[in-house]
């Protein structure tokens, strides 16, 4: 029967596969070691493995979605295409000039990464449009035709066309692209108005350059993946998650691959909102702790915010993205003393190899994982993939040596200190992120996932004054599962600076994007009744240099938008200027398919593991602590702290003063008892 949905999240270490039977709600999980040289190998192997486990065939797959780090890795490793850039005369060096910022204020050894298109590969052509979209210098077809011959002779794989003000006057770029593509039929040609049609030339040009840099290899990867899936019998359309957590088909992924950078965590964050929606938990903060880093996102009322630009390895990517902050500390982060004797955790990490000292693979540094093992918070042998046995003695020795002895502390005290410092840093980022988005940190509900999120969740919550932590099912493979509840969606935008005082018809500006969005969704096979559009306009006061997104309901008048902008400005910036003129700057539309939610259920009460117990260190001493197997828990069950809950990919800690409850869908809800200080 054609009813298996499959979600895959390709990470640096593991490729997580989740499949669910839509009819019965059964879920299968699998972690396959990633194959960074050709990520599709792990995907195909993992998919085949899960199908076998489920006793199903490729033909049974009705949906296939994946989040990939292929694009991100190409950027990190700088392994991409030989790219040429065409740009406006006088502006060849925009990529090098950037925003004139140095990466580190004090450490002059830290350099900006060099541009992905070298100076010698950047060509100026005569053309110019001014800020109002008026042509000052026409494009010279003859000059372009000559240049195209030269570029063809240089064997470029990709060409990016980046002209000033092309976000509002794209004709020159489009004509140049047509002429070049004609002369170089095999080259990957993209324009800045196609990749990121927004103003601020550096960010737009850099994003377009990045798209050209990853384009040719991305095309090959997506094509090989499609072919490989067909070979194992999966004929369902293949979707890829974007950095804004929408699903796009292979054609779109090949056209704008840069939008699939940072996609896995984005799907996880948006998926969390959906998975927790039935519980009405209010404002959420996601806390996704991996081996080397932690991703956090603030979700007012469960909906993620959108960021306009993020950096990948120092290169800006201008695209709507789920707003996630990354902290350089995770389960594998190394704890050490700085030259002044203070304990520091991260950003150096032991990685997967050799890993923490307790992995017994030759790691010689104390990590967060080692500290948790010393305290008994994770058990030797629990919470890890495969049959890796954790070496408690190695962990104790290394924690004692690198932190305990120099500070005159026991291994336990030092381990406790390492966790306190690690969680204080994480709490600082969450607190600032919440305040910057106008949300009170102590009123958040913290959602802990990723391998080490549930281990540290209650500690970070306590440091923030947060009273509630929830742990979704299978927190170690949540991002893959979230892909199963993602929408097919694509973002469109256009920059048009229009004063709102003149009461312009704003819907007219959206009409083009709406038509484009409809065409695109139809092309993705979405039935007409499922189409939905979300519109917003980024506005600012005249003379301001930053914009605030104001939701635009269909047919809203300029007057309504003015009133909403004043109110939003007051709410987020602390003041409004009722007499000041307002400008609309960037118009945004997300075209999305709305599907009824299909929530994969969990594996509840599947096993019959009686709880065991061990002595775990909390605060100042060890306490006898019950240890449960998550798969043995049933909805309605209540567990008082101190307790530990173990599952295949993660360990949840319930400290003294906290209590856990298993909700109807298997989600663990931990609450702090206000009467007891922790």
């Amino acid at each position, binding site marked *: 029967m054609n009813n298996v949905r499959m979600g895959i999240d390709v990470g640096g270490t593991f490729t997580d596969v989740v499949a669910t039977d839509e009819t019965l709600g059964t879920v299968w999980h699998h972690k396959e070691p990633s194959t960074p040289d050709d990520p599709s190998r792990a995907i195909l192997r993992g998919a085949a493995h899960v199908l076998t486990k489920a006793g199903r065939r490729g033909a049974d797959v009705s949906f296939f979605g994946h989040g990939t780090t292929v694009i991100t890795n190409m950027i990190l490793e700088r392994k991409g295409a030989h790219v040429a850039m065409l740009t406006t005369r*006088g*502006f060849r*060096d*925009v990529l*090098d*000039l*950037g*925003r*004139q*910022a*140095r990466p580190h*204020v*004090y*450490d*002059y*050894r830290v*350099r*900006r990464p060099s541009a992905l298109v070298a*100076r*010698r590969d950047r060509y100026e052509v005569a053309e110019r449009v*001014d*800020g109002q979209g008026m042509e000052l210098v026409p494009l010279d077809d003859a000059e372009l035709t000559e240049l195209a011959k030269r570029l063809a002779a240089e064997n470029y794989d990709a060409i990016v066309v980046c002209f*000033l*003000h092309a976000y509002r006057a794209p004709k020159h770029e489009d004509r140049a692209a047509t002429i070049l593509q004609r002369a170089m039929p095999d080259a990957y040609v993209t324009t800045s108005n196609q990749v990121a049609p927004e*103003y*601020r*030339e*550096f960010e737009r040009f850099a994003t377009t350059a990045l798209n050209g840099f990853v384009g040719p290899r991305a095309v090959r990867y997506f094509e090989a993946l499609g072919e490989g899936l067909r070979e194992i019998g999966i004929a369902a359309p293949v979707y890829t998650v974007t950095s804004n957590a929408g699903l796009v088909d292979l054609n779109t992924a090949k056209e704008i691959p840069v939008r699939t950078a940072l996609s896995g965590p984005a799907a996880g964050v948006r998926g969390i909102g959906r998975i927790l929606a039935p519980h009405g938990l209010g404002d959420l903060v996601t806390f996704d702790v991996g081996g080397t880093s932690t991703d956090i996102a603030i979700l007012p009322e469960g909906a993620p915010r959108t960021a306009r630009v993020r950096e990948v390895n120092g290169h800006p990517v201008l695209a709507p993205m789920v707003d996630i902050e990354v902290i350089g500390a995770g389960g594998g982060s190394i704890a050490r003393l*700085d*030259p*002044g*004797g*203070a*304990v*520091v955790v991260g950003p150096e990490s032991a990685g997967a190899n050799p890993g923490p000292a307790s992995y017994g693979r030759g790691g010689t540094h104390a990590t967060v994982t080692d500290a948790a093992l010393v305290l008994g918070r994770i058990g030797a042998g629990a919470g890890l993939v495969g049959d890796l046995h954790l070496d408690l003695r190695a962990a104790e020795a290394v924690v004692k040596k690198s932190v*305990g002895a*120099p*500070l*005159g*502390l026991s291994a336990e005290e030092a381990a406790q*200190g390492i966790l*306190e410092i690690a969680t*204080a*840093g994480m709490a*600082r980022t969450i*607190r*600032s992120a919440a*305040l*910057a988005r106008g949300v009170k940190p102590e009123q958040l509900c913290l959602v802990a996932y990723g391998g080490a999120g549930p281990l540290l969740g209650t500690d970070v919550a306590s*440091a923030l004054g947060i009273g509630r932590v929830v742990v979704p099912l299978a927190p170690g493979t949540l991002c893959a599962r979230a892909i199963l509840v993602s929408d097919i969606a694509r973002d469109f935008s256009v920059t048009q*600076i229009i004063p709102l005082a003149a009461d312009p018809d704003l819907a007219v500006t959206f009409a083009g994007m709406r038509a484009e969005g409809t065409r695109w969704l139809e092309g993705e096979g979405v039935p007409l009744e499922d189409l939905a559009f979300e519109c917003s306009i980024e506005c600012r006061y005249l*003379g*301001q*240099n*930053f914009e605030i997104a104001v939701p635009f309901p269909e047919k809203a008048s300029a007057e309504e938008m003015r009133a909403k902008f004043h109110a939003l400005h007051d709410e*987020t*910036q*602390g*003041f409004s*200027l009722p007499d000041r003129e307002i400008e609309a700057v960037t118009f945004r539309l997300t075209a999305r398919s709305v599907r009824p939610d299909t929530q994969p259920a969990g594996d509840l009460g599947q096993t019959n593991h009686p709880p065991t117990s061990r002595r775990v260190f909390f605060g100042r001493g060890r306490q006898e602590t019950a240890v449960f197997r998550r798969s043995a828990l049933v909805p309605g069950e209540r567990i008082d702290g101190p307790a530990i809950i173990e599952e295949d990919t993660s360990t949840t800690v319930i400290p003294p003063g906290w209590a856990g409850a298993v909700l109807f869908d298997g989600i663990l809800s931990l609450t702090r008892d206000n009467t007891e200080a922790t």
Partner: protein
Amino acid sequence: MSALDGRAMIRMGVIHERLLAVAEDVGELLIRGAFSSNIKERRDCSTAIFDARGRLIAQADHMPIHIGSLLWGLRAVLERYDVREIAEGDAFVMNDPYLAGGTHLPDISVLTPVFAEGRLCHFVGNIAHHADVGGPVAGSVSGQSPDIFHEGIRLPPIRIARGGRPDRDLIDLIAANTRAPMERRLDLTTQIGANARGAALLQDVIADCGLADVEAAGEAILAHTGARIRAGLSRLRAGTYRATRYLDDDGAGSELVPLCVTATVEDGRLTLDFAGSGPEANGAVNLSASSLEATVAYCVKALIDPGVAANGGLLEAVTIRAPEGSVIAPREPAAVAARAVTSNRLAGVIFDALLPALPEERRMAASNDSTSLVVLSGEGFVYPESIGGGAGALADRDGMDAVHVHTVNSTNLPVEVLETSYPLLCTRYALVEGSGGAGRHTGGLGIAREIEALRDGTGMTLRSDGHRFPAPGAAGGGPSSVTRAVLTRADGEVEELPSKSTRGLGAGDRVLIETLGGGGYGPPAERRTEHLRADLLNGRISRARAREIYGEAAVASALA
């Protein structure tokens, strides 16, 4: 160390994170709430927390030159007012270099006392660069003002809020003395509001951790930074080192102005004696006392331990001696508006002097340590652009292109924003080919930016330096280019502009600035062939010039 020390260190680490979060949150609130693009887009502001004795405990990193001026401002508050007169809900405003430890008048500070457990325990402060504070020239940063009275409104440390309520009368008085009163009102109100929020957040920290622990952590934080700096200093090669560099002029038509330092490294201590530096300037390049201290604090952190927390502990092991009445220790009422030029060059002098004492990986050739500020103004707008240049090369890597260095760190305004906001057209924005010094590693390239006025009656103020002296190379590396500024009138008439000048522009007139690059490091003969090849193919240096410096044979083999 005893067991108690270990636990105290961990407690310090936890509380330090909380205090830094408060400083950063005040910065975020300020940047979000501010109206002017200086604060909003260029983040030209800083925030900090002080203890009751006026010591800097935690600071959010934005602008290095701001370290110190909040500190000096707080000293001025504590001198002027008895602590018993300071009440919860007060806030103090100030900007004057002589009356309130300011850097220059556009940098306005607001300091807010924090009370807990029934007493004054801390201050929260922020400082922000306002786009204009009056005076004869838009932007209030002319290099040519003869004294402080020409530079805008002077504020001693005075109350701007009482009982938590901002003083509207005083805010209006300040605003009325500037060119964009609405912006000033909003930005000042935001500065007061951000601090008030910061005070509440700090009270939350104290409620969670206890005042005694927070105060103990404050002591430990200062001691910790002090210890790291002393440890770093004791790793330097002991000795006495000297360096001299020059400013083009004093902004009032003088000859060059020497900046000298004698640096002594000894027993984990550093003494910087600036004897020999030029006399107090008639123009505005004088460096106020707090800016001198900020410049030294920047150098100590950058050279010795860039990762150390910025606080009062930075200067514990440092002695500063500046000759009274010199360009770096001016007397009231000497003008100081262009002090950024002097601060940045002085940082360069300190870097140059200490180079032989540093481990090789921290040695850097001189950079574009001037700042070329161009202010264009017209009806309804004042647009300042601070243009960076090339950074110096290091022993193992080329210098960065197109950045600000040392105590300046502001971003550019994108061309597309410029052209949609003002009646101006940018006709060129590019790297300056050949501007970096040659060497085993080359200096970074400077920036060329040319702007055309689209309307008559456009004002232009240039406050620049480095037009006469290049950034020298190190260890045999070559010097950079020099900065030039050229005004081309619509009718084709061309004028080479002096580094500090003011002109009126008509429609079609264009002003071009080409800033200097960084100095090279190591002998050019040691430049690797593949690096020289990349330089040539990328047009970073012309073939003719490369033949002169690297030799005919080297260029031929690089291009083979």
